[in-house]
């Protein structure tokens, strides 16, 4: 049910009356944009794969890095990111429901489903901020050798220790440093005084060093807490760089998706699409929103699972 104004608009662009690929101009252009964006993301993810295969033996294992869940103590691998995945899938579902209601010209239903989609997007962006905060502030702390290699502290029972546990003892200390800063001399003193402590590489290989070697390595090296673009306590610096870049780029997509969704939502409230006689704008922005969900499905697998 196209209005007269829209028909002339379409004829100007396409002419001939027949629609190429049985689709409309806006939707086709959205698809071509999404195709190029898909290739961009696959470039990033395969570059991540290249670095990971290059440093395979010492690449950090994601479930040792992302272990926090709000309100829960201890090791909770994968739970938080599973929740984020669920939120994004859910918001994709509300988006399909909005598009579906739009096809039936049900303004009230489109309004509600769009609102829920926007809320889902906000919760996801917020979750990602929380994840970044924990990644940046760090967990156990690590030793960086003078060859820029990251090593973690273990005791002779094979437990990985935080600086807090090494310095305050197993009873007093926390499994996570909780933002407490420790100096190199404090950690070195504690490492020297307890023969049960030693250093070990992250990742699959997990090569361990003797107590004497460990002390010598820390003396020549330094301590690292948290993560930035230059160094991080989890392992190879490329790990943090790719984490920031890929989840950041995806998060930026989610954020711009929320903004675009909001513009469409505002127009629904104003009745713009009711007057236009169709809700095709909701369909177009829906494609973008599903694409963001699609990319997350791959980020989830290649960053957190594999």
């Amino acid at each position: 049910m196209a209005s007269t104004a829209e028909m002339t608009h379409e004829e100007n662009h396409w002419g001939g009356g027949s629609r190429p690929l049985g689709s409309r101009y806006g939707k086709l252009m959205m698809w071509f944009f999404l195709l190029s964006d898909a290739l961009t993301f696959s470039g990033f993810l395969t570059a991540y794969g290249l670095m990971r295969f290059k440093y395979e033996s010492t690449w950090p294992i994601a479930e040792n890095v992302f272990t926090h869940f709000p309100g829960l103590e201890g090791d909770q691998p994968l739970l938080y990111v599973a929740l984020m995945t669920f939120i994004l899938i859910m918001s994709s579902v509300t988006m399909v429901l909005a598009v579906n209601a739009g096809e039936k010209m049900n303004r009230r239903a489109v309004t509600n489903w769009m609102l829920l989609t926007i809320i889902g997007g906000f919760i996801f962006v917020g979750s990602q901020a929380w994840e970044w905060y924990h990644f940046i502030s760090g967990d156990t702390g690590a030793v960086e050798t003078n060859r820029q290699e990251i090593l973690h502290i273990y005791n002779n029972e094979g437990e990985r220790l935080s600086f807090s546990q090494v310095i305050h003892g197993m009873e007093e200390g926390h499994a996570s440093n909780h933002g407490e800063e420790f100096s190199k001399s404090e950690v070195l003193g504690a490492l020297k005084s307890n023969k049960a402590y030693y250093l070990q590489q992250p990742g699959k290989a997990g090569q361990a060093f003797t107590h004497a070697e460990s002390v010598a390595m820390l003396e020549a090296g330094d301590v690292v807490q948290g993560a930035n673009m230059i160094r991080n306590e989890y392992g190879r610096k490329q790990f943090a760089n790719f984490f920031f870049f890929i989840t950041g780029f995806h998060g930026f997509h989610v954020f711009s998706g929320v903004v675009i969704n909001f513009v469409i939502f505002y127009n629904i409230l104003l009745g713009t699409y009711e007057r236009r006689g169709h809700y095709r704008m909701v369909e177009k922005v829906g494609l973008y929103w599903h694409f963001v969900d699609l990319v997350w499905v791959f980020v989830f697998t290649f960053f957190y699972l594999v």
Partner: protein
Amino acid sequence: MADHKGTWWIWKVFWILLIITAVEVVLGIIKPEFMLTQALGTSILNYTFIILTLVKAAYIVQIFMHVKYEKKGLRYALYLPSLILIPYLTFILLTEGSYLFT
């Protein structure tokens, strides 16, 4: 537009996506011993994750993004470039990654 009656088909896909994600998370947490066998460069568990991911992606693209109901020309315009270029790039970079500095 394909004519869908009601919204049951949306919720069906929702449950499929949810169940696959739940299976992935459970497998990721327990890491069953028999699935850690190495085959063709990585473990069977990782292949399982990748296959499940592709199934999820297919449902999102086909149903949510409606590609299944588009004209053949548009389907090919989207599938051919992505299904040729992305596996090609993946193959080249992962192969190269294993040889860097060796």
